[in-house]
């Protein structure tokens, strides 16, 4: 009976992230529109878009290989698994033992690898540009992410997200400079990985500067729906990752009752909303960078990660 209950909670988390992801995207768009004094699309617009795309017929390029048709499912599956492993409303769920930060990064990296392949598959020049830029950004963002993981793992003594969150929630870590540096580095990496504004513009389709949209330009119908859903899930994943590591308050501990779980869900919703609003404010206040400036931006994240690890070693030796 206990096993079934655990299963139900884990399943609830998987469904919750899937259902909330388009809402977060919609919220960000809505707040951004309001800040620009526009009305903006309704909050539920991303769901309508997804349903619409699901119903449409798929148009495939003549020289598209089987890989091109398989990749949307692969990308979606990898991202969904990664997103449902991050602790959202409670730690110590049934699959928490596998929620290793390095495994999550590997899942996301393989999703990106498939997507870059899809960009190259049809052989259009836009896809090629998108793939090459995406890989360039990834080659800088991933080392930075690994440094952040090192720092957090050194502080918490584990790379497992549940253990980390439990350690940070206990307050033993205190305020640490390394944690602050890691937070800023993680935010930079999250912005770059989700193709948000200083690095890439998620709202444009006809610019020579686009990265993510250039790769998925050839997709249509249900394939496009899956890729868009995966992109929303990735945004949700990063927001919940930051929330679970740096604002872990309110998460239900393992073995607590329904009330704690409900409280966890409510605080999680609050954190997501705060994340979406902050992201929109940040995006409105900044202009998009030239592509050649992106390495400097991400280099700063890498440097902060290095600095955090360094400081962690120093204060550990005191």
């Amino acid at each position: 009976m206990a096993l079934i209950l655990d299963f139900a909670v884990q399943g609830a988390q998987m469904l919750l992230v899937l259902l909330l992801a388009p809402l977060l995207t919609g919220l960000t768009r809505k707040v951004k529109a309001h800040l620009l004094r526009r009305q903006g699309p309704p909050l539920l617009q991303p769901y309508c878009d997804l349903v619409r795309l699901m119903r449409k017929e798929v148009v495939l390029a003549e020289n598209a290989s089987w890989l091109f048709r398989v990749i949307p499912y692969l990308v979606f599956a990898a991202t969904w698994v990664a997103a449902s492993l991050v602790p959202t409303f409670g730690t110590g769920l049934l699959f928490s033992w596998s929620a290793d930060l390095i495994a999550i990064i590997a899942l996301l990296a393989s999703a990106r690898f498939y997507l870059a392949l899809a960009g190259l598959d049809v052989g259009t020049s836009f896809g090629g540009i998108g793939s090459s830029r995406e890989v360039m950004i990834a080659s800088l963002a991933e080392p930075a992410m690994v440094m952040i993981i090192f720092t957090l793992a050194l502080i918490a003594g584990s790379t497992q997200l549940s253990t980390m969150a439990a350690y940070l929630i206990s307050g033993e870590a205190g305020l640490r400079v390394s944690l602050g540096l890691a937070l800023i580095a993680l935010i930079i990496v999250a912005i770059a990985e989700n193709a948000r504004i200083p690095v890439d513009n998620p709202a444009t389709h006809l610019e020579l500067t686009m990265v993510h949209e250039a790769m998925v330009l050839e997709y249509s119908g249900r394939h496009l729906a899956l890729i868009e859903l995966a992109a929303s899930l990735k945004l949700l994943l990063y927001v919940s990752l930051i929330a679970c590591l740096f604002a872990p308050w309110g998460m239900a501990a393992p073995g607590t009752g329904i009330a704690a779980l409900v409280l966890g869900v409510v605080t999680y919703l609050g954190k997501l909303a705060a994340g979406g609003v902050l992201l929109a404010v940040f995006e409105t206040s900044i202009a998009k960078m030239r592509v050649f400036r992106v390495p400097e931006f991400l280099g700063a994240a890498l440097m902060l990660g290095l600095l955090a690890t360094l400081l962690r070693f120093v204060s550990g030796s005191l």
Partner: protein
Amino acid sequence: MRGLTFDIAHMLAGSLVLISFLQLYQDRLYALLNVFALHAFVLALSVAWQAYIQSAPHLYVTAMIALVFKAIIIPVALHRIIVRLGIHREIEKVVGVGTAMLIGMGLVALSMVVMLRVTTGADPLAREDLAFALSVVLLGLLMMVTRRNAVGQVVGFMSLENGLVLAATGAKGMPLVVEISVAFSILIAFIVIGIFLFRIRERFDTVDLQALDRFRGERR
């Protein structure tokens, strides 16, 4: 001394180092001045926190000096100088942002190694503060080296002085007289540098200091 007081002091000193890196990253003069004002503001917070935990009321005066002079008066004055010189466009640097950041990392590591070796047996709070202060000083020096523009060098000099104040407040008991005289000499230096900026511009039509090298005959 471990606990929240230690953590907050540590956090403030660490954010000063972080803001020094932000200064290295900025390549526009306006943004640079804003970051410098932030640097001085965080310094004031850090000094005020030290005053609170050491229960040393004269440090509040130091914090007020940092807040009024360095976070408000000097950035505003530099702003006006930039507008009057008409050079608010861009800074060109001797080395790129990436290289400057890497060198900065090396300097931070160096100051950590040096300070922790030298001060074994001291209070951990003071040790960490000293290490951070030395990094801020070295980053200010690096900033002066990597900028060719005179205004950028002035900002580097001022943030170097911020590092000195951080070091002095971390090590208990700097007399108030010394602090006030340092603050005023900084102000005087600022005025002198401001006048020099205009003189340099008058003579060479630029505030790019490589013009001076050419004038000395070092570069043809």
